[in-house]
């Protein structure tokens, strides 16, 4: 009979009988792994594919990109070390980079709040016990699945082109619409609208957040005579702030990296006149059109720092307005 000796050895009645018992019972064999260690090994083995992916697809390329950001790398020839020259050039010698930052920041600052407001409003409407809620939820979620795809961006180009659908509709009412896509004053707005159109995924998260608000609070408020708006602003919104915060942070991080829409709608150029030159689009152009991969790597790391700083700021400011129910 094999006893698990690790736990029982040394326990039990003291004295010579015990010592004899101890000598007769099998000792733990150090060369054979214990049960705990075996389970750990199984865990690590399951972890291995994921970790291999993390290493090969994320960590190693990350390190390579950091190294490349200090080099002059034209893709076709091996990289040569140039120290901080790329970074210096970025901030002091490249007006287009600053333009692309400006365009991206405007895009983020305008499209993210609008998108969240839209999502919240729709979530509130859908949560008010509408019939056919499942259907509406699916329909409103659909655009966010397709929103960042190439196909939708191409469609966007058609709809907002000079002879596109929107101008056709405006023409019916007698309005001569501008050439939305090819006019530098309006081209960014079409991309903002594209982002807002994909409000479905924050909306679903808001819906889930709304479900978590205890209904007793509403009943108590109704008993106290609170009206709809009061209930909205005193109960719903404050209790939703963690969800709003979550959506805000994620949406901002995503919007800073936006690429597909701008690439397709502008035909790859960030035009006209650099009005849709998102930061990541400019990065792509420097890397693949101008054979300037070292500089593009530096741009990528600066983007990382910007997003990290902005997220940190969000968390700092968030302490003021986010209300976690257990505080």
């Amino acid at each position: 009979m094999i006893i698990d000796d690790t736990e029982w050895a040394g326990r039990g009645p003291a004295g010579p009988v015990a010592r004899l018992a101890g000598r007769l019972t099998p000792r733990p064999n150090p060369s054979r792994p214990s049960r705990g260690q075996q389970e750990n090994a199984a865990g690590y083995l399951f972890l291995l594919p994921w970790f291999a992916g993390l290493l090969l697809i994320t960590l190693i390329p990350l390190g390579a990109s950091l190294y490349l950001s200090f080099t002059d790398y034209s893709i076709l020839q091996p990289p040569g070390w140039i120290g901080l020259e790329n970074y210096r050039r970025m901030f002091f010698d490249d007006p287009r980079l600053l333009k692309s930052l400006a365009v991206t920041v405007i895009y983020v600052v305008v499209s993210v709040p609008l998108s969240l407001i839209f999502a919240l409003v729709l979530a509130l409407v859908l949560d008010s016990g509408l019939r056919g809620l499942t259907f509406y939820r699916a329909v409103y979620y659909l655009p966010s699945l397709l929103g960042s795809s190439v196909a939708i961006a191409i469609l966007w180009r058609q709809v907002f082109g000079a002879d596109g659908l929107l101008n056709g509709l405006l023409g019916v009412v007698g309005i001569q619409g501008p050439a939305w896509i090819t006019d530098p004053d309006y081209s960014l707005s079409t991309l903002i609208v594209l982002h807002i159109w994909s409000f479905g995924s924050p909306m679903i998260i808001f819906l889930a957040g709304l479900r978590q608000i205890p209904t007793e609070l509403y009943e108590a408020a109704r008993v106290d005579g609170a009206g709809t708006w009061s209930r909205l602003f005193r109960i719903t919104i404050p209790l939703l702030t963690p969800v709003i915060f979550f959506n805000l942070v994620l949406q901002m991080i995503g919007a800073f990296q936006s690429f597909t829409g701008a690439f397709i709608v502008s035909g790859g150029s960030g035009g006209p006149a650099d009005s849709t030159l998102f930061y990541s689009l400019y990065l792509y152009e420097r890397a693949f059109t101008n054979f300037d991969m070292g500089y593009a790597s530096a741009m990528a790391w600066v983007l990382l720092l910007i997003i990290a700083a902005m997220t940190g700021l969000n968390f700092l400011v968030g302490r003021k307005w986010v209300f976690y129910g257990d505080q």
Partner: protein
Amino acid sequence: MPGPHDGGIRSAGHGITRRAFVAGAAMLPVAAAGCGNDQGGGSPGAIRMTWWGNEDRAKITQQALDLFQTKHSDITVEREYTGSFDDYWDRIATQTAGGNSPDVIQMSTSYIVEYGDRGALLDLAPHLDQAIPTTDLAKGSLDPYRTGSGVFGIPWVGNVWTLIYNEKVLQDAGIDPPGDDLQAWTWESFEALAQQLGDATPDDVHGILDFGGQSTTFEVWVRQQGKALFTEDRRLGFEQADLAAFWGLADRMRRSGASTPPDVTSAAGDTLEQNPMAKNQTGLIFYWSNQIVGLTEVGGGPEQVPLQLIRVPGESPTPSQNVHASQLLSASAKTKNPEACATLIDFLLNDPEAGAILGSNRGTPLNEKVAESIKGTVEPVETQEIDFIAAQSDTFAPAPAPYPVGGGEITDGIFLRVYEELMYGRSSIDQAAASFFEQAEQVLARGGK
């Protein structure tokens, strides 16, 4: 929860561990097979060719490659093509970076130095006059491409940057096309003609597609003054005043309605389908002479869109137009099958049957025998191009040297972008000229990065 004392779980735990290991080990070769590059198609004698161009060009190129495959049954050619010139170069850069470059590449003078100097292209010198005879190539066409480090591309077809006019638009406006007298066809008379066209046509039709963003039209302007876009020591070969004068003309014509408004110009892009000339919405356009073929086809044929070629204005006393090697054939330095590449290049360059299929969609074949032989078999609009070049060649200038490293970015990127700022009223002419110089000199100084 069962603990380690429970014999059942323990033995199951043992089993899971072993099973997990076996499952994991089985996954590894599958995962490894999923990655890795796809070089040259996999089997020997299979090569990949790539080109830029629209669907019509793709159709005839596929036909020619099918013919090649029947003639050389041991070589298969996989095909890739890209519609837009700019997207094509993005793709080539990405593929070359990934070690996945196609074997035979349709090459441009704007980029041959970039790729050749950086070691991405195969030196074709050992194959010249053996696998690839060049005796029938137009005299002097290969010389600019014999560099010290090798021959990285062989000029395939030629064209001329010239003026195309739309007979239908001119007839409807009641305006006669310019005559053959080179001395009378000046920039002033050109501006007057475009202005007349702009005035006499309905609102959505214009005199000329705005040419301010076309660096090749500017090159014509500059060469007519005895200067050049780039000098041999990789600097700009002209002054800010030259650029300001050119943009002054383009700006004036745009404001007066002779040229297309900014949104039409931007929408035209670099694909034929969006070009207003194909829709009979402009009377004139500066373009490559071979595009007369593409534009006519996209527009639905010569009855719908009747086009004619004429010289650019201002060619007297100093001509600037030249037969430009519009496309060259190059091979990747990393190709696994250089002999097959050489055979394909020879076929495309020298075989009259290939010439008959490809016609002059890309330009006039620089192989003079092929050019002569196809005249009877191609569409009339293609013969138009061949005849135009033949008739005008006495008064053409020699071709300029291929652009230095960074040249492509300057002519296709910076020039257009700075003009767009001007076009949309965000910059004055002098500011734009200064901005162009600043950016272009930066690119040239960095060795074209």
